């Protein structure tokens, strides 16, 4: 994890300084970002689309995803809905209008899988959000947290179990306005 964060840091500094321009801190404009990503989670590899509303300090996002393994290879839709909230701990804008966002993120997701009964997977993650680019941007999220699986048992009791969960996603975004 430490080496991964170090790698992200190196990537950011290299991109910024390779352009030989001075990084200036200034107000980031409010923007709407549509993004698509793949996200590795405990139960599947999810293909997702997100819509983010980015302000000076906060990023609000909502997303819809599908578990690729189960949806594509098992003929069973595995949809997931999610909402996220991130704070811009670092928000930089270069003279070439390259924007960098980095900050902690909280994310809640809810996924559904019909086995025979409907299994519901609710997850709460704490992690980070990283975005670099201008009109087009590279977006990366990762986090750890807890998840709970619920279903009705063969004796119609409500059964649930919790466990550790994780996610890591990479994607591309497009900003307008």
């Amino acid at each position, binding site marked *: 994890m430490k080496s991964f964060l170090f790698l992200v840091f190196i990537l950011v500094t290299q991109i910024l300084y390779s352009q030989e321009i001075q990084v200036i801190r200034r107000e980031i404009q409010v923007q709407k970002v549509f993004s698509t990503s793949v996200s590795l989670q405990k139960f599947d590899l999810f293909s997702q689309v997100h819509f983010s509303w980015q302000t000076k300090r906060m990023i609000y996002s909502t997303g819809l995803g599908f578990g690729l393994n189960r949806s594509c290879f098992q003929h069973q839709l595995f949809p997931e809905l999610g909402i996220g909230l991130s704070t811009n701990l670092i928000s930089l804008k270069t003279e070439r209008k390259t924007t960098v966002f980095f900050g902690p993120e909280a994310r809640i997701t809810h996924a559904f899988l019909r*086995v*025979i009964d409907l299994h519901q997977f609710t997850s709460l993650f704490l992690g980070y959000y990283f975005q670099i680019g201008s009109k087009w941007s590279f977006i990366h999220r990762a986090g750890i947290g807890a998840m709970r699986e619920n279903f009705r*048992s063969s004796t119609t009791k409500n*059964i649930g179990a919790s*466990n*550790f969960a994780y996610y890591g996603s990479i994607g591309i975004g497009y900003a307008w306005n």
Partner: protein
Amino acid sequence: MRGISGLLILMVLVSCTKKSNFSSIQVVGHAGMGLSMGNSMFHDNSKEAIEFALQMRGCDGVEVDVQLSKDGNLWLYHDTKLESESTGAGCVPNKTTSELVELHYKTWKKEKLIPLADLDPSLLAGKTLYLDLRTVNECLNQSINSALLIQRLNEIDFLHIPEIQIILVTNNVVLANQLMDSFYVVYLDVTGYQMAQQLLQANPIIKGIVIRNSAISQEEVKMIQNLGKKVVLYDMRSAVGIRKALKKNPDSIMTDDLREAIIETN
């Protein structure tokens, strides 16, 4: 945007295609919810994993790994060495119950090791319980006391309830014959078709075989079934692997991803 819409439509179409009918094949959870599976909620052979699996509609039973402790109790543990998966060290046959009761798996939830007698018989009613019997003490390279093993099996009440189908699995032919003398249903754990054929011909009283999915073809499964024997396939993790196993039309599959197997068979 067009690409994403296309992908979504493709997913819907793929998910609506007709599936083959495998509903007659029994789905059994390998060591509960699956062996060493990242997406399992609990560690294999733990009470939590076994109970979670048994409560899932579509699960026809579970397989557990049984080892005899030093003081003659039957414990559930898969590996030969305790240090590989638990907080203990050494082998189960060298440990007493008081030592084993202190151990837990090296997981976030720290599930405890449990004796076979601790399973809840009410959850097993109408289901099949496969007991994979370990017959060698790997630390001492010795065979375990088979007479004591059979005696301990006889002492567990729920193994003799008619509502629960008990199938014992072993790779030891001598033990298999001893178990059948005690009226247990025994399947042989074999490594290949040739071995299965030879052993079944030499021991016609054995009811079936348990074999790795990759070690047997569809035709060979059919030939074993033509002898009047059951075939149980194991070692399948992905949806593709489960589907390949189901296409061989075995009597049961012991799956490492119970949810995927239930979806495929229903």
